[in-house]
């Protein structure tokens, strides 16, 4: 009947999304590093006749938003006014978490504390007296363990109860006579503006103004009382007030803590021991590189037998289909179009899954934050904060979440640079192209070739970042200040779930975009009626020859031109289109055999092609994400143009140089 909106807020990495998933049955992305969630997500539950809407917000350290993801959280709480805010609190870091509580309560919105990660606190022997905490703060405190789904019912009960008992008054930090007098006089002035008073709690607004909060200043700027507010503020040292107020908040917390928490004997800290090794002065970087190389090897070696198995299965299927299906055109549609196109992409599912398994391991253990810590100095050299390294690592899976992850980067220019270089990080969609061509043309050296491509992608990203920093987006790198989460042991279940939910996207893509692409290419290759399938007289041939002059200097023929054109939609489509055009369905041969047999393709051309696919324009989904995150089509257009020029140039160079290394192949 009555809808209740519950917002999940709190510091980063305290388990908001874990609770959200447990409450709503969703499968939003969870990871053991601060800044996983960067957009708000909504889920619905029906409970005792109530429709409850739960909103998962990005983590934030304070309501003075600092980065783009924090703005999302602050604006939601402030402007959308949820019926109740559930602040998820990490029981092991009470002090810092409660700082946010002191800010949220000033908003005069009903609050419930979900005391999460209690299992970890208890493991160190620390106990928290929830009842006492609750009565001191005048806020209900519920015990939860998000990962095990404990305390969900109690949490919902408390949230619904609080939402219904509004209007509300919460325990609010008193700032001492001098500051309270300032607040009171500000409130007196602000009260003259009815509009402002309707939208924001005035005491909160006054306190924020005293702290010199830009966002609060902007809110009163349009108001008729603006000049009188300025009069009060002008004669004061806001930095002083700010420090005094922060100090008071921590004082209040410091007074509460000893009454509610009994610290356990701090046991031997496993996180500390792991960190001694992986961030060691001498071992840190070798371990990082070894992990990357190991992941890379795994992606190929472990996957190989599975790939062979799928290949064999598809070969059998297409042979069988050729026998069953009557009309030749139907056999061609299914054999060449669907099996040739979609099948050639599905073959690489094992590689993709292993890559995702590795990425989720990085995220879930907490190593990702250490990678940023280790690489920060390097990022500094190219003018970016170490956090910019995280979007890059995420980009190896897919550039779309990689670009989204840039929201956690504070400086606007830093964020833009991080967004613009992300497409050069070789995402999983490009992997099939490499495996196909490197496997066909480089035999035993295939691994090294693919590794070279990854390194080339990273180098291009770094080089471009430096270039942008010195030209279009000049400035200093923003500060690197990052919380280091404790290591957590991911369970087999959650790792597989994460891998599956992302890997499934690849499979789904194969069944949608790639299938559509393959069908279009099949039609182009089959019409007009009467032409030989996939010949240069077909529509595809005409289209390809139209484009051919553009890529001829790189040694690409019309088939490749067509594949590259459709590959703009999604890069796997390059493989899918070639699968269709080379008509691998009939013979049941693997596409690689057909490519190898093409006299127009040499190892050098294959390498040039892989370089081209690595760098040329981002896929449609990525372009749309750049447009959304950078806020204008201009940047998206720039990204496409820059990528095309770079791809063309580098691939020309590689194509010319490679024969010398490959013995004139």
């Amino acid at each position, binding site marked *: 009947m009555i809808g209740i909106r519950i917002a999940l807020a709190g510091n980063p990495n305290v388990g908001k999304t874990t609770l959200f998933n447990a409450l709503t049955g969703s499968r939003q992305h969870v990871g053991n590093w601060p800044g996983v969630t960067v957009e708000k997500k909504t889920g619905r539950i029906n409970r005792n006749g109530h429709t409850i809407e739960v909103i998962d917000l990005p983590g934030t350290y304070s309501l*003075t938003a600092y980065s783009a993801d924090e703005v999302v959280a602050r604006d939601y709480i402030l402007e959308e006014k949820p019926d109740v805010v559930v602040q998820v609190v990490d029981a*092991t870091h009470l002090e810092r978490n409660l700082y946010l509580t002191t800010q949220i309560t000033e908003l005069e919105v009903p609050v419930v504390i979900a005391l999460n990660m209690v299992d970890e606190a208890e493991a160190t022997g620390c106990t928290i007296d929830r009842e006492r905490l609750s009565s001191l703060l005048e806020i209900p405190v519920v015990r939860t363990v998000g990962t095990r789904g404990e305390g969900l019912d109690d949490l919902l009960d408390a949230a619904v109860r609080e939402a219904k008992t509004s209007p509300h008054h919460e325990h609010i930090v008193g700032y001492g006579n001098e500051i309270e007098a300032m607040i009171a006089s500000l409130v007196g002035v602000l009260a003259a503006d009815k509009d402002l008073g309707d939208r924001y709690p005035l005491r909160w607004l006054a306190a924020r103004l005293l702290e010199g909060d830009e966002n609060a200043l902007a809110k009163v700027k349009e108001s008729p009382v603006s000049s009188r507010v300025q009069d009060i503020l002008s004669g004061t040292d806001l930095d002083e007030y700010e420090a005094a107020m922060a100090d008071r908040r*921590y004082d209040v917390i410091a007074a509460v803590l000893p009454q509610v928490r009994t610290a356990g004997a701090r046991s031997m800290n496993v996180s500390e021991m792991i960190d*001694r090794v992986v961030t060691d002065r001498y071992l840190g970087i070798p371990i990082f590189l070894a992990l990357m190389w190991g992941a890379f090897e795994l992606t190929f070696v472990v996957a190989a037998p599975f790939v062979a198995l799928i290949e064999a299965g598809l070969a059998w299927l297409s042979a069988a289909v050729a026998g069953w299906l009557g009309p030749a055109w139907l056999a061609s549609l299914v054999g060449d179009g669907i099996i040739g196109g979609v099948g050639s992409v599905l073959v690489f599912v094992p590689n993709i899954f292993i890559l995702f398994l590795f990425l989720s391991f990085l995220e879930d253990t907490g190593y990702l934050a250490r990678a940023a810590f*280790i690489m*920060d100095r390097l990022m*500094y050299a190219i003018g970016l904060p170490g956090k910019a390294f995280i979007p890059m690592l995420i980009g190896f899976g897919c550039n779309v979440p990689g670009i989204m992850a840039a929201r956690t980067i504070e400086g606007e220019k830093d964020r833009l640079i991080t967004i613009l270089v992300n497409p050069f990080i070789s995402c999983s969609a490009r992997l099939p192209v490499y495996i196909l061509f490197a496997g066909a043309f480089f035999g035993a050296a295939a691994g090294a070739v693919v590794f070279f491509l990854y390194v080339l992608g990273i180098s291009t990203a770094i080089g471009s970042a430096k270039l942008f920093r010195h030209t279009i987006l000049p400035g200093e790198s923003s500060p690197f*200040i990052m*919380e280091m989460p404790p290591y957590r042991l991911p369970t087999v279940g959650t790792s597989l779930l994460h891998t599956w939910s992302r890997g499934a996207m690849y499979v789904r893509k194969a069944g949608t975009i790639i299938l559509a692409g393959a069908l279009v290419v099949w039609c182009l290759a089959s019409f007009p009626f009467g032409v030989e399938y996939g010949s240069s007289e077909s529509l595809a041939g005409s289209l390809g020859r139209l484009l051919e002059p553009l890529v001829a200097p790189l040694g690409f023929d019309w088939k490749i031109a067509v594949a590259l054109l459709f590959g703009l939609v999604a890069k796997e489509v390059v493989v899918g289109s070639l699968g269709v055009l080379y008509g691998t369905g009939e013979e049941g041969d693997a596409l690689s055999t057909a490519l190898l047999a093409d006299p127009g393709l040499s190892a050098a051309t294959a390498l040039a092609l892989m370089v081209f696919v690595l760098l040329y324009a981002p896929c449609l989904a990525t372009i749309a994400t750049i447009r959304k995150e950078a806020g204008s089509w201009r940047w998206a257009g720039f990204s496409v143009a820059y990528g095309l020029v770079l791809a063309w140039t580098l691939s020309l160079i590689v194509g010319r140089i490679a024969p010398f290394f490959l013995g004139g192949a």
Partner: protein
Amino acid sequence: MEPSDRTAPRGGAVTTLDRIDLGCRCRVVGIRASGALRKRLFAMGMVPGADVEAIRVAPLGDPVEYRVKGYALSMRRAEAGLIEVVLEEE
């Protein structure tokens, strides 16, 4: 690069956080940063009066990881240099 290369500050004297030796504890007495960075530092527990300990340095010499308010926070020396501290007597 290493903090220990410089003359290590003695207890009681005001210095900055980037100059603290690993394993040393100190107390924050002032924050020289302003604007958004200042608010960020406050929210992350770097407030006057907070106890801070330098735990480890990244392999390339920067950033440094500190323990403050019971959790681990890493930051660049550039930012740590804005935080005034006094060493705590052993």
